[in-house]
Structure formats: structure tokens, C-alpha cells
């Protein structure tokens, strides 16, 4: 029996080769892409889930009342962690955490190492297993260093690393550290990435020693492990006294200045964020919001694509069943019951699905390297090889096969014996289903296309927007060498000053956009002004900063060439001026604890942060001997490439051991749009695939419809219908479906894109053309797809089509 089924299934598939190929191609593409997308989404969702105590691990942050409303603050002060553990019940373990880069030397070799500075509890909380060396407390000492396997290999090769000494550049001195343990390389689903781990106290003076005992200097994150018996909400409540005690000043000031308290009526509240949520949390806009939209969106796209391919399969199977009516009738007469027929037809579907899934997996394997490069992800198919996930996958494949293959099979097995023997099929009911499925298909395609268009528009808008500074002619790079920043800049100026294509050189402690090294920092300063609390971003700059970036001074002056004479001057942006609210802004002063600074100039607002945020108040300082971190070089607009090479060469002579990580500021801006670009590529390729698959379905349907209406076409031609009349007759039914799909999908797309754009402070206006464009694309492609078949049918000789009867 089974052999018989297989045999007839294969023969049937072969007989309907065209449809089999269309189905297999469509399903293969859909399964292949769905596997890749699901893999990507699962990979994203599985971040930081490998920690054994993961469920009890939290990041500690606070909700602070500020002039701009409640803001999330993840930075904590040096005494905070220890005090919290001592004073509030429920803290099982706690660690401070700073992630940064250091320069490590071993013998005469130098290595840039990404580094985590943590407290000793770190290794007991997080699952970064130690495979060699001191397994209990490897960073108890301030001169211990723990390395990953990979870092060990880079530094020592095959030598025994434990007990070796390396030196790390700190406060311009080489400080020796002893290797005490080797940890396993962290899984690629870890947000915490490091090459080496050091004791928190091993940080430089600026980051640690200077901050000891000070509650007002917040510069690191804090993670804690909650005791098993305590609920996070309960813990958050129990920290009220702790906050009242240690942040009394801040709370009183917030009350005095009339700031909005948070939803619990508190001006400062400690909160816990589950470790697995940290990666998906947004700390930039008011209270923390955790959003896993992106991975779920990707999962959604993969589901939609599978759905479209399955719709093709269902439609084709049902339409084709008309050709198999006699077989069905005959089998029933010969004694087949419904169940047997159902299993026969379902079996055929399963065969097609098995082939497609097999090919789909091959396709996914083949496309994986390209996928990984395109989306800069380390997700691999191994991500999906987890038993429970595999079970879910297998079940969903079974479910898809059951529905997509089972529904047509059910319809066929239910047909009446005599009707099917006579070849009569009541088609009215099924056309409704077919039509609604096709409307859905095209609706999805149009939704995805318009999404792509809007996204692309927004990204182009952000990329090309005038940000208020010169981004085309300025190269920025991190000062990542051994010299101190002032020396390095001095040398750079000297080296470059004779070059005709170099306009000016400066430095600052922040970076515009996102540099090649991927590191960023912000300093926010809070102080009192005229009896109110005021907050400003603090940017420390070198001479010529304003000139190099072409910032516009609207009042007052720029910093003098002789920067030392301006060490007590500040220049503020418009937003800051507005906040200070002075009649004569140039006569105003700001009073920080250590000194009083005079405002000497006001610059026009420029977008020093990303475009999802409004321009915040900002103050430029010209402090001497400050950590500057990034150099900016303005070059003349001719031959930018040559200028880049010159700057690179100059840096290489100054710091021969450091890597030059320079890029033009417009590239930096581009880098901040990576997330959006990934989304465009995902949704864009999804929409292309969706429209292709929908058209495969449409093409198959046009084949079948033309075949079914062959006689009608012949008769119409004999009674005098023209070729165009017949083409229109055949095309209009399908076009109607696409138009309905457009009418349904556009409002949904509008609503979705409108919501998405709310994430950006600077955004494009939605206009009707984006949606009409998407609809137009769908209509044109659909027309082209069916044109071939319908025109051929319309021009064929009617005698031929009538002879078959």
C-alpha cells in the first residue's frame, strides 16, 4: 500500500513537473531563508542566557528625576556596590563592572586588549568557567590578571601562561601583572566580551583612586545576584531607605526644583534589570524600556515568508485537484475510504515538503557565510541545535505540512464519488479561499515593500541630514598609543602642519558618530545654577575644535589659540543657553565645585548625539591635561583619500605599535545607522522574496486558470472577442486581488511605520507616494507575471482549444 502511494506520488509529481518545480523552488527558498532568519532571531534572543545563575542576576540602575523628566541611570559610584550589599538584605553577591581597552605588553610585543575591571565575586556570579590556574579567587590581588584562552594564545602561543608576568600601561607607566588563571572563551552569545579580566581596583587613578568614597562620581555599572528568597520588586522597595540616606542631597534638590517624580512618587529609585534584558534595554529615553521587537520582527518575517510559500502550495494543490477528479472517483469506487485517500494525497504533500526542507537546509548552509558577513552576526546553524528548540522546529514543520498539505488532501478526499467520476467540481466555495489567500500574500508583500521604502527613506534622511558640523572633511581616530594625549596631539600637529592638504588638528574626549574602535563615552555634569539643578553634557576639547568641525558661533568667541589662557572659559550650545536662561549669556558664569567658569561663547546646536535624541545641553571645556581620547583632523576637500593616507602615515610614525583606526565622520555617522541598515536589509530581502514567491503562486494560478478557461476563451474568440478584450478578461480578476491587498495592507503599513518613526526625534514625514509606490511595484510585477500566459492564451487559435472537447 505504502509503496503504491509513493509510486503514484512520484509519478504524479513528475507528470506535473512545472508545478512540482514551482512548488519546490518556492518552498526551498522559503525554508532556506526562514531557517536563516529564525537562526538569527534565536541567536539574538539567546544572548546572556548561558549563565547558570542567570535568573538571579540583575543590573542595578536607578531612575533619577532630572530637568528632562525621569531618566534611567546605569552609572554607579565607587562606594555604592559595597554599601548596597551591607545595608540592604537580599544581595547575595555583587560586582562593579567596567569594560574598556588597555595596552598590554609582553617582552617587546604590544597588544590592544579589551578588558573587564570587576570585583572578585564576578567569577562566582557569571558562568565564565576557569579552566586553569586559581579557580577560587583569581583576581583577589590587584596585580593579578585573568585571560581568555584566545588571548593567552595570542600573547604566549604555546607557552605555559600561569605565573607569567605581563605589563599593562596605566597612568603612563608600565605596571606588572601576574597571570593567575585562564578562562574559557566566552560564548558568542555573551554581551560581556573581554580578552582579560582585572581587579576593579587595578584601574587608573582617574577612574578609581580619585573616586574612592565619593558618591557623586559615577563611572561604572553594577551587577548583583539576588538571594533566592527575594523578589526583585520586593528588593527594589526595600532600597528606599538606602537611597534616602545616600542620595539625600540629590533628592532634596530635585524636590526643590520641582522635578517630576517617577510613577512610584520617588525622586530616585534603585531598580533591577534582569541580565537577559540588558541587551534589549533602552536607557536613553526616560525610564528603561525593554524591547525585543527586532528579533521578533525577524521571526515574524520568516513566518510570513513561509506562509506565502505555503499559500502557493495550497492554492496549486487545490487547483490541480480538478485534474485528478477521475482518479479520486475511481479509487472511491474501487473501495478506498476517505482516510486512505487523505493519506495518499497528504503523503504526496509530505514528499514535496521533505524535498523542499532538505534543499532548504542545504540552501541555508550555502548562504550562511554570506548571511554572517551581511548581518555581521556570529549566529550559526548550531544555534538551532538545542534539543527543546529542535523539538519546536520539528513540530512547527509538522504543523505546516499538516495544514498546507492536509487541507487540500482533506478537500479531495471528501469529494463525492459520482461527481468526481463525472469530472464535475463545485468550484465556487474554493475560489473564495484561494482569493483571500492571494490577497493575504500580496498584502504581506506590499506591507514589506512599503516598510522597506519608508525605512530606506528615513536612513537616507539621517545619513544626509545637515548635522551642524563638517562631517565630510574631518577624519577622527582614537588616541590609542603609549604617549599621553597632549604629547600625541602635539606631535601630530607638528608632523602634519606642513602638509598642504591638512587644514587643522584638534582633539576631544568624545567621538561624533561611532568610530572604528566602537567605543563611546559620555560625561554628564550636574551642578547648581541660580538655585536650580542644571545638567549638561561635558565635552573637553583641544585648540581649534570649533574651527575644525566648522561649528557656528552665534555669540561671543571661540577658544583662543593659546588654550591655557582659556582654562576657565566654557563655550555652550544653544540648548544649554536656553537652560541657563540668562539675559546676558556672555556675562554668566557656571559654578562647579572646583572652579568657576565663564561663558565666553555660544555655538549653534549641532547633533553631537544620534538622531533618535533631541539636542541636549552641552558645554565645551578647555581643561589642560585632560584625557582627550580622540583626534580630529580636518583635511582639504580635494583628494580625500590622499589626505587619509597622510594622516595614517603621520600616526604610524608617532605611534608605530598602535593601530590607526581613523575614519571620516560621515562614515562614523553611517556606523551609528547599522541597526537600521540591518533592518532594511532584512525587511528588504524579505520583501523581495515575498513578492517573488507571491508571483510564483500567481504564475501557477494563471497557468491553471488559463487551462481551465481554454474552452471559454475559444468560444469567446469565435463570437468575436479581440485579443486585448480576452487579455483584460483574464488579467482583471488577478489585478482586482492585488488592488484589494493594497487597500488592506497600506493602512496597516502606515500605522506600523508611523509608530516606528516615533523612535526618532528627527524623522521624515510619511507621504502617500511611499505606499502608492509599494502598491505600484506589486501591481506591475503581478501584471508582468501573468501577461506571458494570458497573452499567449488570447492569441491562440480557437479551433485548437475547442478541439479538445
Amino acid at each position: 500500500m505504502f509503496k503504491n502511494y509513493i509510486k503514484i506520488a512520484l509519478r504524479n509529481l513528475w507528470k506535473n513537473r512545472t508545478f512540482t518545480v514551482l512548488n519546490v523552488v518556492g518552498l526551498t527558498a522559503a525554508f532556506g531563508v526562514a531557517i536563516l532568519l529564525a537562526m538569527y532571531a534565536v541567536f539574538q534572543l539567546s544572548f546572556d542566557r548561558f549563565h547558570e545563575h542567570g535568573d538571579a542576576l540583575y543590573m542595578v540602575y536607578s531612575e533619577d528625576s532630572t530637568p528632562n523628566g525621569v531618566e534611567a541611570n546605569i552609572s554607579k559610584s565607587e562606594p555604592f556596590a559595597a554599601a548596597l550589599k551591607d545595608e540592604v538584605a537580599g544581595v547575595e553577591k555583587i560586582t562593579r563592572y567596567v569594560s574598556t581597552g588597555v595596552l598590554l605588553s609582553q617582552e617587546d610585543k604590544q597588544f590592544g586588549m579589551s578588558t573587564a575591571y570587576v570585583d572578585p565575586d564576578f567569577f562566582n556570579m557569571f558562568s565564565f568557567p576557569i579552566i586553569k590556574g586559581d579557580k577560587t579567587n583569581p583576581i583577589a590581588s590587584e596585580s593579578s590578571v585573568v585571560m581568555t584562552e584566545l588571548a593567552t594564545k595570542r600573547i604566549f602561543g604555546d607557552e605555559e601562561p600561569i605565573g607569567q608576568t605581563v605589563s599593562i600601561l596605566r597612568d603612563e607607566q608600565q605596571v606588572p601583572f601576574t597571570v593567575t588563571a585562564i578562562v574559557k572563551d566566552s560564548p558568542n552569545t555573551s554581551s560581556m566580551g573581554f580578552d582579560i579580566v582585572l581587579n576593579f581596583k587595578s584601574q587608573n587613578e582617574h577612574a578609581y583612586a580619585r573616586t574612592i568614597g565619593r558618591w557623586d562620581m559615577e563611572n561604572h555599572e553594577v551587577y548583583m545576584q539576588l538571594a533566592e528568597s527575594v523578589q526583585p520588586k520586593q528588593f527594589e522597595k526595600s532600597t528606599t531607605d538606602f537611597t534616602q540616606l545616600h542620595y539625600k542631597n540629590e533628592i532634596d534638590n530635585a524636590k526643590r526644583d520641582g522635578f517630576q517624580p517617577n510613577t512610584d512618587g520617588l525622586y530616585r529609585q534603585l531598580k533591577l534589570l534582569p541580565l537577559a534584558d540588558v541587551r534589549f534595554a533602552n536607557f536613553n529615553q526616560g525610564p528603561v524600556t525593554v524591547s525585543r521587537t527586532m528579533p521578533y520582527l525577524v521571526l515574524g518575517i520568516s513566518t510570513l515568508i513561509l506562509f506565502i510559500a505555503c499559500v502557493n502550495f495550497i492554492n496549486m494543490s487545490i487547483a490541480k485537484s480538478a485534474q485528478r477528479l477521475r482518479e479520486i472517483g475511481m479509487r472511491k469506487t474501487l473501495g478506498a475510504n476517505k482516510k486512505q485517500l487523505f493519506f495518499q494525497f497528504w503523503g504526496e504533500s509530505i514528499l514535496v515538503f521533505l524535498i523542499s526542507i532538505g534543499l532548504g537546509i542545504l540552501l541555508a548552509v550555502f548562504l550562511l557565510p554570506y548571511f554572517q558577513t551581511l548581518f555581521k552576526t556570529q549566529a550559526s546553524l548550531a544555534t538551532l541545535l538545542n534539543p527543546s528548540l529542535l523539538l519546536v522546529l520539528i513540530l512547527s514543520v509538522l504543523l505546516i505540512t499538516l495544514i498546507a498539505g492536509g487541507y487540500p488532501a482533506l478537500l479531495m478526499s471528501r469529494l463525492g464519488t459520482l461527481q468526481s467520476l463525472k469530472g464535475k467540481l463545485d468550484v465556487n466555495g474554493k475560489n473564495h479561499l484561494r482569493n483571500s489567500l492571494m490577497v493575504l500574500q500580496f498584502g504581506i508583500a506590499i506591507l514589506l515593500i512599503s516598510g522597506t521604502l519608508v525605512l530606506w527613506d528615513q536612513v537616507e534622511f539621517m545619513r544626509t541630514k545637515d548635522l551642524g558640523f563638517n562631517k565630510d572633511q574631518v577624519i577622527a581616530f582614537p588616541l590609542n598609543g603609549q604617549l599621553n594625549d597632549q604629547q600625541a596631539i602635539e606631535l601630530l600637529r607638528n608632523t602634519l602642519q606642513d602638509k598642504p592638504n591638512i587644514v587643522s588638528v584638534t582633539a576631544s574626549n568624545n567621538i561624533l558618530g561611532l568610530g572604528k574602535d566602537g567605543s563611546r563615552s559620555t560625561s554628564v555634569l550636574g551642578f547648581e545654577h541660580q538655585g536650580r539643578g542644571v545638567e549638561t553634557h561635558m565635552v573637553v576639547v583641544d585648540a581649534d575644535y570649533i574651527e575644525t568641525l566648522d561649528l557656528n558661533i552665534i555669540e561671543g568667541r571661540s577658544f583662543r589659540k593659546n588654550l591655557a589662557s582659556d582654562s576657565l572659559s566654557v563655550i555652550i550650545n544653544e540648548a544649554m543657553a536656553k537652560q541657563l536662561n540668562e539675559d546676558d549669556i556672555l556675562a554668566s558664569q557656571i559654578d562647579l565645585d572646583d572652579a568657576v567658569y565663564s561663558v565666553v561663547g555660544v555655538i549653534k546646536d549641532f547633533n553631537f548625539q544620534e538622531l533618535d535624541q533631541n539636542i541636549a545641553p552641552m558645554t565645551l571645556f578647555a581643561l589642560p591635561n585632560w584625557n582627550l581620547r580622540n583626534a580630529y583632523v580636518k583635511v582639504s576637500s580635494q583628494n580625500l583619500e590622499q589626505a587619509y593616507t597622510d594622516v595614517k602615515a603621520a600616526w604610524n610614525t608617532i605611534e608605530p605599535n598602535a593601530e590607526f583606526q581613523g575614519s571620516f565622520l560621515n562614515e562614523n555617522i553611517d556606523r551609528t545607522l547599522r541597526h537600521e541598515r540591518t533592518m532594511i536589509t532584512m525587511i528588504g530581502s524579505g520583501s523581495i522574496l515575498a513578492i517573488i514567491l507571491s508571483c510564483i503562486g500567481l504564475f501557477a494560478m494563471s497557468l491553471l486558470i488559463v487551462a481551465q478557461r481554454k474552452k471559454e476563451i475559444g468560444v469567446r474568440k469565435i463570437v468575436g472577442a479581440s485579443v486585448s478584450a480576452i487579455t483584460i478578461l483574464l488579467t482583471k480578476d488577478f489585478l482586482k486581488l492585488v488592488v484589494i491587498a493594497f487597500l488592506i495592507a497600506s493602512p496597516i503599513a502606515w500605522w506600523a511605520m508611523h509608530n516606528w518613526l516615533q523612535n526618532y526625534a528627527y524623522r521624515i514625514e510619511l507621504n502617500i507616494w511611499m505606499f502608492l509606490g509599494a502598491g505600484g511595484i506589486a501591481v506591475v510585477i503581478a501584471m508582468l507575471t501573468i501577461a506571458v500566459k494570458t497573452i499567449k492564451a488570447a492569441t491562440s487559435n480557437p479551433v485548437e482549444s475547442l478541439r479538445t472537447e
Partner: protein
Amino acid sequence: MQNILVSLNEATRTVNSGSNKVTLLDNINFNVEEGEFISLMGPSGSGKSTLLNCIGMLDNFTGGGYTFLGEPVHSMKEKNRSKLYKEYIGFVFQAYHLIDELTVYENIETPLLYKNVKSSERKAMVADMLDRFNIVGKKDLFPIQLSGGQQQLVGIARALIGQPKLILADEPTGNLNSKQSEEIMELFAQLNKEGVTIIQATHSESNAAYGSRIINLLDGKIV
């Protein structure tokens, strides 16, 4: 005393065509005894095929009684009915209705598959049948490769493989030339001699003459 195979008592079939009630079969009364060879005659639309389909349980009478081998078919459930016809009835069609995707051998074998006959037994039975109809050499051909007469031969072989008590043949020679027709009718006469009960519907006087009894139908009534 011959067994009564089929007994129709006031059997009627009406269908609704729009708002009109159309009577296809009107109070049919007759018995078929085992071993008979009955020819149903009548012009197109007289109800021959409908009567055959109803007797073959592919269709139902809408009124009256139908007893098959003493069992009341009219009050049976669909499942038991299909069990009954699977067991006792074989069909032969004017258009042969062979399954295009199956070979001669597989076409003949199919009813046995649905009866869950064991593989070895199946082989023997199909081989017998191929022998008996002299089509061993054609067993691996597909229907499309056979002449009409040969296809009908396969159709009859398929109807017989389940060893039915009753063969229902609806215009079995309608698509065949006279020589092929004659061969097929000879075959039916031969089968009837071997004990198979046959009811055929036909237009042709000469074909009808092969039967042991002729029933004439006109507008759904026996005349």
C-alpha cells in the same frame, strides 16, 4: 432455488433542479437472482445509469426499499454500505476509468490494496487474472499505451479481481468498435456462465441479447 441478490421495492430517486422536483427513477420494482445477466435498455436520459449507480451504492435511492443479499441497504450507514459494495460489487465503465498513473498490473491490483489483501496473495491473484485475460505481456504498460478494447479488458479484470458477486457495467462497449464490442460481450457471457451475476446498461439491441433478461426503462419507469 436461486438466491435473491438485489431486491428493489418501489425504489425512487428524485432530485431538485432549481425549484423543480425531477423524478429520475419512479417506483422501480424488480429482483435480481444470482446468476442472472440483466440488460437495462432505454434511450438517453431514461435512468439506466442512475439505476446502476444506485444499485452499486455510489448513489442513493431517495425513496423505497433496496435489499442486497437480504440486507436493507436503504437504512444502512455509509460505512457499512461501502463495506458491502467493496466486498460484493465490481464496476465496469464506458470510459474505462483506469488510473492513468498506474500500470496495467497496478490498476488491477488496486482494489486488493483497499481490501488489505496480503502481498503474496495479491501477486498470485493478479497473475491469475492477467493469464485469464491474456494480457500478461502488457502488465507493465500504462493505460494510455493500450487500445480501447484492451483498456476495457483491464477494466473488467480490475472489476473481477475482488471476486464480486455482482458486476455492474455501464455501457461497457460504448467507446469500442463492433469487433471489440463483440469480444467484450463474449467475455461477459463467459463470466456469467461461470456464475457471476451481471447487470449491464446498453443502447444496443445486439448487446442486450447476450443477457438472460431485458428490462426496458423510459423516463425512469420500467415499461
